[in-house]
């Protein structure tokens, strides 16, 4: 029998994996760095919380609005961001994260420092979703997101993204609008983050500006880097590893974060492509073993 503790960990991992998949669309597919993904995760959570708590909508009626708002704000913030040079983009997205967090914390409408509480659980077929059913609901959403990403890599758009990432001038000489495609990635990525944030809000039932601060963005990026940027399963694997590891290393409670950060450092230093990326150790070993069989 699964303990409720394990279910909690599992649910959080699945919710985060959705956000990391969104980040993968921006960083992995479009090659645009984003260090402010937690801001969009937060925008999703706050929008859903406000729509359900203050406007009295159900989770399901709120969901399309949440995803649309997430994508729309992604579009609005993406437009000026992608016009700047790459290094600026990294800093701009950090800035977006700090500003969005500050807005949540200082504007009374967003509950100020106290955050928003009393967020209702999701109702599905007259069942209040929590525990195992909620876990499967999140898993269902994750599957949809992965399916979209998978479809995306088979679509013509992914070829265009490759082209832009490798030779932007040549790509635009072939009729591809870099701005439009980068924005597309931003909108897709941020609306996935918003979906993830909405699930998070209805799971925790209480949210606070601190849940969406810059270190959360760094966490998302670490998961992506660990799993493999630009791959389909990398985001999921990275999230699972970084979600489960701290639990395994619970006895070493004091050294946990250090272990975490050193792991990230070693990964990026020796395997920048991540566990599933090109030229990765794990992939080589796997393919060699399979060849032998």
């Amino acid at each position, binding site marked *: 029998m699964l303990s409720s503790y394990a279910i909690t960990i599992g649910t959080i991992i699945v919710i985060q994996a959705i956000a990391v998949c969104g980040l993968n669309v921006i960083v992995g597919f479009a090659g645009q760095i984003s260090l402010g993904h937690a801001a969009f995760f937060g925008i999703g959570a706050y929008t859903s919380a406000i729509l359900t708590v203050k406007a009295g909508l159900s989770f399901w009626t709120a969901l399309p609005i949440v995803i649309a708002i997430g994508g729309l704000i992604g579009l609005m913030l993406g437009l000026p961001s992608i016009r700047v040079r790459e*290094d*600026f983009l990294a800093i701009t997205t950090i*800035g*977006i994260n700090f*500003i969005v967090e500050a807005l949540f914390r*200082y504007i009374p409408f967003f509950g100020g420092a106290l955050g928003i509480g009393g967020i209702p659980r999701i109702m599905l077929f007259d069942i209040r979703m929590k525990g195992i059913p909620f876990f499967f609901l999140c898993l269902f959403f994750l599957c949809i997101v992965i399916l979209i990403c998978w479809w995306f890599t088979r679509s013509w758009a992914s070829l265009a993204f490759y082209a832009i990432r490798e030779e932007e001038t040549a790509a635009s000489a072939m009729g591809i609008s870099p701005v439009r495609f980068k924005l597309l990635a931003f909108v897709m990525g941020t609306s996935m983050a918003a979906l993830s944030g909405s699930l998070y809000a209805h799971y925790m039932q209480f949210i606070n500006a601190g849940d969406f601060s810059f270190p959360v963005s760094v966490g998302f990026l*670490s998961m992506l880097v660990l799993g493999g940027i630009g791959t389909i399963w990398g985001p999921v694997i990275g999230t699972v590893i970084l979600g489960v590891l701290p639990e395994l290393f619970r006895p070493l409670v004091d050294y946990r974060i*250090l272990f975490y950060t050193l792991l990230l*450092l070693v990964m990026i230093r020796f395997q920048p492509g991540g566990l599933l990326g090109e030229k990765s150790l794990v992939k080589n070993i796997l393919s060699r073993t399979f060849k032998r069989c």
Partner: protein
Amino acid sequence: MNTFFEQLLNGIAMGSIYALVTLGLTLVYGVMRILHVAHAAVYTVGAYMGLFLYSSTGSLLLAFFGASIGCAILGVGIERFVYFPLMKYPPFVPLIGSIAVMLSIEEIMRLIAGPYILTFPAKLPFPDLSFSGIYVSSTIIAVYSITALILLVLWYISSRTELGLAMRAVSQDISISGAMGINSHLIVSITFVIGSAVAAIAGILVGIYYNQVYPTMGAVPAYKTLALIVVGGLGSVSGGVIASMILGVAETMLIGYANIPFPRDALAFIAMIGVLMWRSEGIMGSSR
């Protein structure tokens, strides 16, 4: 009116410290095109080293020198073991590496020195002054004079020495200057030595100024100074210094003096986005 002037002086002191941190970041960006987030961790280590040396020897001079040397070694270590091997990847790879270094060092400091706030009760060799009712503490005088000294020395190095010329050549184009016979990797390392030593001094100054040294003291400056180098124009030293001064004063005056209920740490980023909209190359940057 007196509080106004006292806050203004505080603001300039804050700006000076920002400037010292931003300086290293700008220099590193200039030669390597890397956003050196871990610079703020070097600054934290500097503050701890300074505090340790001061409390064990009682000499402030020794604390400044020792911490500078220690941080210079740390800075070059980061460059050799993390940044240099990652130069061939897209810029976000070394950036993530830098964030990882930053967080690791923060954690190591927490494990070594404990998560508490330590005090830095330094006796400064400067007098407390008072002009017609405006009180100027010895810490502020120390911050002003040390910042001025460092800026002067750096100005001399960059404009009057061969080293400065080589550094400028490397920041123009690292491969061409290599072909011209400049040992560009050595120049990059020297840049890290200078930047990190200055960061150590900034760390000690902050420690004394606020009388606080703690493991996460670098967390906010790490990202705020990134905004500052954008506002100043990426790679422009004078722009970075000016932007730092303005931010220090603006933060202190708007939030400390005028009491505007506003998130202090978001101000730098709001200024940055404003500058990017208005003049994307920064206040002192060159347009390309």
